[in-house]
């Protein structure tokens, strides 16, 4: 690809200082690109660092977290070098978040229109009456009748709240939208509607979207490219097609097997035994080694690096790095 990426995350590492003084490596050497108008799926189990990645990009990490290395380039500008003041102006105007669980992310004692207007007015983008009109337009764009804008979050259904959350994310016309598990806790019908809405909006506004999810079905539906995360690292990345049809990393492979597929014979659903490693007790070699069914000797001692396996498809596994890389 010759086009310059909109967002380019390079070698991002984040450490957490735990309560007992231990260091936890929440993210290590995370790199990926997001292109204009495209959707990147960030996939992985709970606790693998997906949300931490988003928060690190927005510089909203909790006080006990430190970004140790890396760059976050947005249109070529390193966000990590901005002052807090500059960053505050930058947030929402350029990139916004659709939070997981809209009920909690909306202030229960503020009306929906107040909350959307708040974002617009904070950035001094327009006057109060212009903002009120814009809120109406946004509500209609996400399919909520204008007259319900003056209601409180508890008066909305789960799906409507998520739509309102999307309207809020679009308030300042950002170029990049982070959707942090936007369909969790919604039933399947509403999930499909919300995803459809995101797709429509992307086409209309030319947004780039980073979709964080653990649902590979969702990824197959909407994503152009995918980055699979495990234990704070990106273990495989590539186009959605190549990841689905030719997964290189055993983790991706097993993740795909653990989702039901109508085309596979019944009973082929498998789970991955064990749990993801704790950030304070990471295995010395490959992080997936203790749970991997294809592990070889070197996996326990040496961490594999990300290497290109085919055009645009990269994976970090000793098995797919050719005999030369193995020894």
């Amino acid at each position, binding site marked *: 690809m010759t086009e310059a990426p909109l967002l380019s995350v390079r070698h991002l590492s984040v450490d957490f200082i735990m309560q007992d003084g231990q260091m936890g490596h929440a993210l290590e050497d995370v790199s990926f690109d997001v292109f204009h108008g495209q959707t990147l799926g960030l996939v992985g189990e709970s606790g693998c660092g997906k949300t931490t990645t988003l928060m690190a990009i927005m510089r*909203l990490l909790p006080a006990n977290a430190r970004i140790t290395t890396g760059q976050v380039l947005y249109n070529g500008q390193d966000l990590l070098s901005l002052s807090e003041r500059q960053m505050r*102006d930058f*947030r*929402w105007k350029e990139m916004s978040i659709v*939070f997981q669980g809209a009920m909690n992310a909306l*202030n229960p004692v503020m009306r929906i229109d107040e909350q959307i207007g708040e974002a617009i007015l904070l950035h001094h983008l327009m006057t109060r009456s212009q903002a009120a009109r814009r809120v109406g337009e946004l509500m209609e764009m996400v399919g909520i009748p204008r007259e319900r804008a003056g209601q409180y979050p508890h008066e909305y259904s789960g799906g409507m709240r998520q739509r309102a959350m999307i309207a*809020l994310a679009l308030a300042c016309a950002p170029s990049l939208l982070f959707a942090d598990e936007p369909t969790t806790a919604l039933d399947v019908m509403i999930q499909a509607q919300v995803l459809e809405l995101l797709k429509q909006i992307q086409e209309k506004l030319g947004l780039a979207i980073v979709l964080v999810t653990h649902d590979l079905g969702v990824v197959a539906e909407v994503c152009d490219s995918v980055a699979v995360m495990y234990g704070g690292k990106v273990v495989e990345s590539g186009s959605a097609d190549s990841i689905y049809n030719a997964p290189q990393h055993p983790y991706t492979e097993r993740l795909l097997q653990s989702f039901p597929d109508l085309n596979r014979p019944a009973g082929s659903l498998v789970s991955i035994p064990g749990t993801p490693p704790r950030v304070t007790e990471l295995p010395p070699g490959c992080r997936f080694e203790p749970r991997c069914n294809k592990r070889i000797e070197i996996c326990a001692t040496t961490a594999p690096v990300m290497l290109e396996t085919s055009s645009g498809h990269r994976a970090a596994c000793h098995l797919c790095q050719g005999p030369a890389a193995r020894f």
Partner: protein
Amino acid sequence: MQEFWSQLGRKLAALWRTFSHNRMGMFGALLVTTAVLVAVGAPYLSPYAPSEVIRDANGRGMTFASPSVHPPLGTDDAGRDVFTQLVHGARISLMVGFLAGSIAMFIGSLLGILAGYFGGAVDTLLMRITDILLVIPDLPLMIILVATLRNLELHISPLVVLVLVIGLLYWTSTARLIRSQVLTIKERQFVARARAIGAGHAHIIRKHILPQIMPLIVANTVLILSTAILVESGLAFLGLGDPTKPSWGTMLNFAFSRNAITNGAWWFYMPPGLAIVWVSLGCVLVGNVLEETLNPGLAIHHLEDESRMVARRPEAAPP
């Protein structure tokens, strides 16, 4: 700011709807309201000035006259009308209590919000100051402070000294209460969302934290008010009030020092004593009911109280 007030207005209206159904709360509100009305209308309620000596038909001062049609609550050792002193004393007691309570509330809320919201070193520093103030016994400290401030000859009214000393010492419990509430609110996700939309700390505190703790502040103000009035009475009783502007506490001090008790002049010390009880009971009732309505966690859950259960335990099966 306009939004803040409209939000507060809506909250208070909703609060009144619940509050007005609570008998204890309404009784307390009645006590407080009458006291305030008496204080406001003091000059109209009594024909005398507080220091005016009542004279009988022969022009002699009536000392320790017992209650009758005139004067209704008797007179004190100097022949002054107790009723007049009582209604004028309401002005001083309530005024000092209200001002001191407001100062305490303001400091407590401010420090509580700062400590809870910013955490870390700010929290540690502010809470250690709070701890130190909490462990020093209030009364001796206040007596020393008031006495010292007076001896400095700063030419400020003794009442102002009282207001400042009470206000500057009684914010500790409020600060802790507000801090704990802010701690839970700031962890809610909508605060993180507010940060993500580019809001600064001042904006988040003003629009997302303050409206949520405002009801708590209101309830706590009423409780602090009662404490402030009680403390003022205590200090005035110990002779630290302003003898030229007698509050209820000062009246008790006069009654004690001028042997009203040995003279059997109960009408001299009972009315101010009961008035203090009247107002502080009213404030405590209102404050407690406000707290209960605003913090549903304090209410008894219907599952803890069998009589409130919707589905009762089934009767023993007939044999």
